[in-house]
């Protein structure tokens, strides 16, 4: 109703926090100070796997200024982001599982004293055998890093079949097979994680933290501290960059809270840069094999994807990450049948988790390079091959995702035309090349981290009688512009200026729950909640003003701080007067809006990871220059088109696209979380090769190419004002587009990321010697994936369930339907409260 005359939506206005950010006024967690504040330091493990034999605090206790210590014995309750992976301890409990895991906490009156004391703590370990890679995890089932693993040191093993894959392969005209490796990398937010815990009256506690997920931190704190949730207040400070790296509840946050309770005074911890590397939760290294069946015309018939993830030492989001490596293969090009196999290995390295694109950039790299090779083999233009196989609007995929609007075809045409791809691909001089790739991402995970039937986001508005509007939302500003989207939607709906609004966000005591800034869910879910809350207020004021002006309520319009008759615009009230009229007639004015994603059609075990209200689509063409003498390559120009539904604020949207291109280029060119094993004589530790900003190479001002960004706008009915996500999707096509462009430039394939110059050179040398012009991993070894769930696709007579779910339960020893979506759905109708939400205690934790 406001789209044709919008005041804010679709316009490039300044973000609401712009002035605070350019003047240094934004308060990040480490900027906070409280009277009598103490400082916390953590003593971290120096061995990658070991039993803690002894902890000697005697010398540390002598350090002047020391106030207290905590060890694993003080915080014995395990926690973790996923209910099925409650495998972390705030401080290591008996066993350490990676170098850098926190073992002892010390608080002191100054940061220096805390550090000095931490340096004086002596810990002795009994070393245990260590596992450094997927290979080693497969070959070393014992000793187990965690006893709850599906098998040996395989945290998760899964096998899903959608439709008749073998039949499709047997009648295929062409079968293609490729193996890829995507190295792990890390978020590298410039802000180091920080937390301040402040004891409050009434045995209460306030925790300020640089977290993307205050609600999940709230739950973890309640569980580990054993405190009722109402006594804990978590406030997420604006994050100085997140990218997924601040979306787990972290041990240091819990320890900080526990220490503040122990000492009865505020406590702060700020991680050093090296500690941020140890916290990690970055991109999983993924080794994968793709097999694809096609008919004689280049139509896709089926795909088999096997992925192996190196998970590091803890579960983190890993079970979700594992499913995500297979979930979104089906949403871009129509796959009539699909087979997915995956394992996630535990290794003695910092835990991997969600980074921008969460589990999907790795298989997307494989898929898009694989397609490029197929196009070359079939003598087709890669753009045509993709266009020929596009998934259609509103389809339900083989793995049961309900898709929304799809403008991938338009996105492809846009970048192809802008870059003159059809005229130039395959025809540029040696050393110059063009690469095309696509991608798609969720607009919010369809299901919350813990099963429940409650909204994923809610917004409450309070209208002051002076005309000001208080906007309460649990959403967390991590730089993506969530505050601005929130304000713009409310201001647009009520016809207000942004300055009329006061935002109160990400405060578990004052704001309704929003699950957090992850999975690209905020614009869509928080946006819908904000829209509904504002419509709630609007409806009330409209009713009161209609009475006052003697017009029909649906004739009442809100714009430019006036509430007036649409038919006779001069007949109306100022916003302030309208508010007074409404409050006099109706009492105190408030509005509530909440959003729960639509029920997804999948009903099989695993269908919880991948559904989304709708999906964004991206296409990119990258032009590169490769020096055949050195293998050094650089991106020269990027054309990227993103199907965003509607850009609520194009400046913010473009910023997300440019930032995603940058981060994707970093992963393609240089970023890697690489580890090395020290010699046995020197502790055999697995140490991070590059735990510093200097040595962990990331692109600087000098590496960025010219970026042409195109916003493809067709409103999606699921999004607020038609908007879809833009924070993560645009990263996905970048690494494969680089690989494809390098092939176009010099005719070699580097089937792994990062594409280091020495790998390009090695492939060029192989080509010169007449060997296959390829560098990359071998195919995955044979792996026992155990029980295969068979799920008929929508066109195969299925209802979204696995055909053999019951046999699976029997085989895996799982009883009943406890913990399934079905159980949650039935709970309301059965009037059972217990099953409505996952309790704080994990189901399978140690």
């Amino acid at each position, binding site marked *: 109703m406001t789209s044709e005359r919008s005041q804010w939506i679709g316009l490039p206005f300044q973000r609401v926090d712009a002035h605070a950010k350019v003047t240094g006024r934004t308060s990040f967690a480490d900027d906070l100070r409280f009277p009598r504040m103490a400082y916390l330091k953590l003593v971290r493990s120096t061995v990658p796997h070991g039993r803690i034999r002894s902890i000697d605090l005697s*010398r*540390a206790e002598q350090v002047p200024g020391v106030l207290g210590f905590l060890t694993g014995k003080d915080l014995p309750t395990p926690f973790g982001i996923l209910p099925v992976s409650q495998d972390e301890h705030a401080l290591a409990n008996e066993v350490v599982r990676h170098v850098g895991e926190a073992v002892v906490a010390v608080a002191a009156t100054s940061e220096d004293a805390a550090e000095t004391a931490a340096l004086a703590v*002596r810990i002795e370990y009994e070393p245990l055998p260590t596992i450094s890679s997927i290979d080693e995890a497969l070959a070393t089932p014992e000793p187990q890093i965690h006893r709850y693993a599906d098998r040996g040191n395989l945290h998760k093993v899964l096998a899903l079949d959608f439709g008749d894959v073998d039949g499709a392969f047997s009648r295929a005209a062409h079968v293609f097979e490729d193996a890829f490796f995507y190295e792990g990398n890390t978020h590298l937010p410039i802000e180091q994680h920080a937390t301040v815990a402040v004891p409050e009256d009434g045995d209460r506690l306030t925790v300020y933290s640089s977290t993307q997920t205050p609600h999940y931190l709230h739950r973890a704190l309640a569980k580990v501290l054993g405190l009722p949730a109402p006594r804990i207040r978590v406030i997420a400070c604006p994050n100085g960059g997140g990218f997924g790296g601040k979306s787990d509840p972290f041990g240091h946050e819990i320890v900080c809270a526990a220490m503040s309770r122990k000492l009865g005074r505020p406590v702060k911890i700020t991680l050093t840069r090296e500690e941020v590397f140890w916290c990690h939760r970055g991109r999983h290294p993924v080794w994968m094999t793709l097999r694809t069946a096609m008919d004689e015309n280049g139509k896709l018939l089926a795909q088999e994807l096997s992925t192996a993830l190196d998970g590091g030492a803890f579960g983190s989001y890993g079970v979700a990450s594992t499913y995500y490596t297979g979930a979104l293969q089906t949403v871009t090009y129509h796959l009539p049948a699909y087979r997915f196999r995956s394992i996630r290995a535990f290794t003695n390295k910092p835990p991997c988790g969600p980074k921008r694109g969460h589990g999907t950039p790795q298989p997307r790299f494989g898929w898009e390079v694989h397609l490029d090779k197929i196009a070359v083999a079939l003598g087709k233009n890669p753009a045509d091959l993709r266009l020929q196989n596009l998934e259609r609007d509103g389809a339900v995929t083989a793995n049961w995702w309900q898709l929304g609007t799809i403008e991938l075809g338009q996105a492809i045409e846009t970048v192809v035309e802008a870059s003159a791809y059809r005229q130039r691909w395959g025809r540029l001089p040696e050393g110059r090349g063009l690469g095309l790739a696509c991608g798609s991402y969720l607009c919010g995970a369809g299901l919350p981290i813990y099963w429940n039937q409650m909204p994923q986001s809610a917004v409450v508005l309070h209208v002051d009688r002076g005309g000001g509007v208080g906007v309460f939302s649990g959403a967390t500003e991590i730089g993506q512009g969530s505050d601005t989207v929130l304000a713009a939607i409310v201001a647009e709906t009520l016809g207000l200026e942004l300055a009329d609004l006061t935002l109160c966000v990400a405060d578990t005591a004052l704001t309704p729950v929003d699950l957090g800034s992850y999975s690209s869910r905020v614009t869509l879910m928080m946006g819908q909640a904000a829209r509904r809350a504002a419509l709630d207020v609007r409806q009330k004021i409209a009713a009161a003003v209609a009475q006052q002006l003697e017009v029909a309520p649906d004739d009442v319009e809100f714009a430019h701080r006036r509430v007036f008759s649409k038919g006779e615009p001069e007949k109306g009230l100022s916003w302030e007067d309208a508010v007074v009229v409404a409050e006099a007639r109706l009492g105190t004015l408030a509005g509530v809006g909440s959003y729960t994603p639509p029920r997804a059609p999948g009903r099989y075990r695993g269908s919880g990871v991948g559904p989304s209200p709708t999906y964004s689509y991206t296409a990119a063409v990258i032009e590169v220059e490769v020096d055949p003498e050195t293998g050094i390559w650089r991106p020269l120009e990027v054309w990227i088109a993103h199907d965003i539904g509607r850009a609520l604020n194009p400046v913010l949207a473009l910023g997300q696209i440019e930032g*995603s291109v940058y981060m994707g280029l970093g992963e393609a060119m240089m970023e890697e979380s690489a580890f090395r094993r020290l010699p046995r004589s*020197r502790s055999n*530790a697995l140490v991070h090769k590059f735990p*510093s900003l200097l040595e962990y190479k990331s692109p600087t*001002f000098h590496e960025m190419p010219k970026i*042409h960004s195109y916003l493809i706008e067709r409103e999606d009915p699921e999004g607020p004002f038609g908007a879809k996500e833009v924070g993560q999707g645009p990263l996905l096509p970048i690494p494969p587009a680089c690989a494809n462009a390098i092939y176009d430039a010099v005719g070699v394939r580097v089937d792994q990321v990062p594409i280091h110059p020495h790998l390009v050179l090695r492939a060029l040398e192989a080509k010169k010697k007449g060997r296959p012009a390829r560098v990359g991993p071998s195919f995955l070894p044979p792996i026992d994936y155990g029980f295969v769930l068979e799920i008929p696709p929508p066109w195969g007579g299925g209802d979204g369930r696995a055909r053999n779910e019951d046999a699976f339960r029997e085989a895996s020893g799982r009883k009943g339907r406890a913990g399934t979506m079905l159980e949650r759905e039935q709970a309301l109708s059965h009037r059972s409260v217990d099953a409505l939400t996952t309790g704080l205690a994990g189901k399978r934790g140690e």
Partner: protein
Amino acid sequence: MLPAKGRALGVMPHGVRRGSPDPASRVSRKRGKGSKDTESAVRVGTFIVNNETRTVAFPEHHSLLEVLREELGLTGTKHGCELGECGACTVEVEGRAVLSCLLLAAEAEGKAIRTVEGLAVGRQLHPLQLAFAELGAAQCGYCTPGILMAAKVLLDHNPSPSADEIRTHLGGNLCRCTGYERIVEAVAVAAARLQGTSRELDPAWLQGDQRNAPAR
């Protein structure tokens, strides 16, 4: 007193540090080192920050970054590494862009220091700040103060830098959000405004590229 080199690293008493080839050797180095000597000497110093003269007491081994943030309460200056790697702590000292994490506070006594808090005049933003706000050159805003100060020093010395000169001058500042190019443009826009000339802004910065896109 702590060894200066030990500051700002992960606290791993028996363990791995950046550049340390071997945790085991670190054990022997750290063991036996007494923990009595923790009370560092305190120094009283006078700083001229943002044209205000302030005298504070501070641990003498502390960096300018620490004194700015802790003793002087100027938390606009950020830290991302405390090893001189990210540029987030950049401030202006005597007309030069300086990494405040690498400068002992004692060395900055009596010198003219400017931080991000001293960039605006009252409510009037500096043209750099305005351009950053308008163009969305600050996303999370954490690297922004350091980049603004580095850019300010650049424009003081080179009022109309080329895009490449801007990239070179800001090359030591890392940003994870923006992809940098919007920052380069914002600095160029601010430079033009400071020169009293207007710079035509390519609408692609605000609306996205339209060139060569197929008609829909």
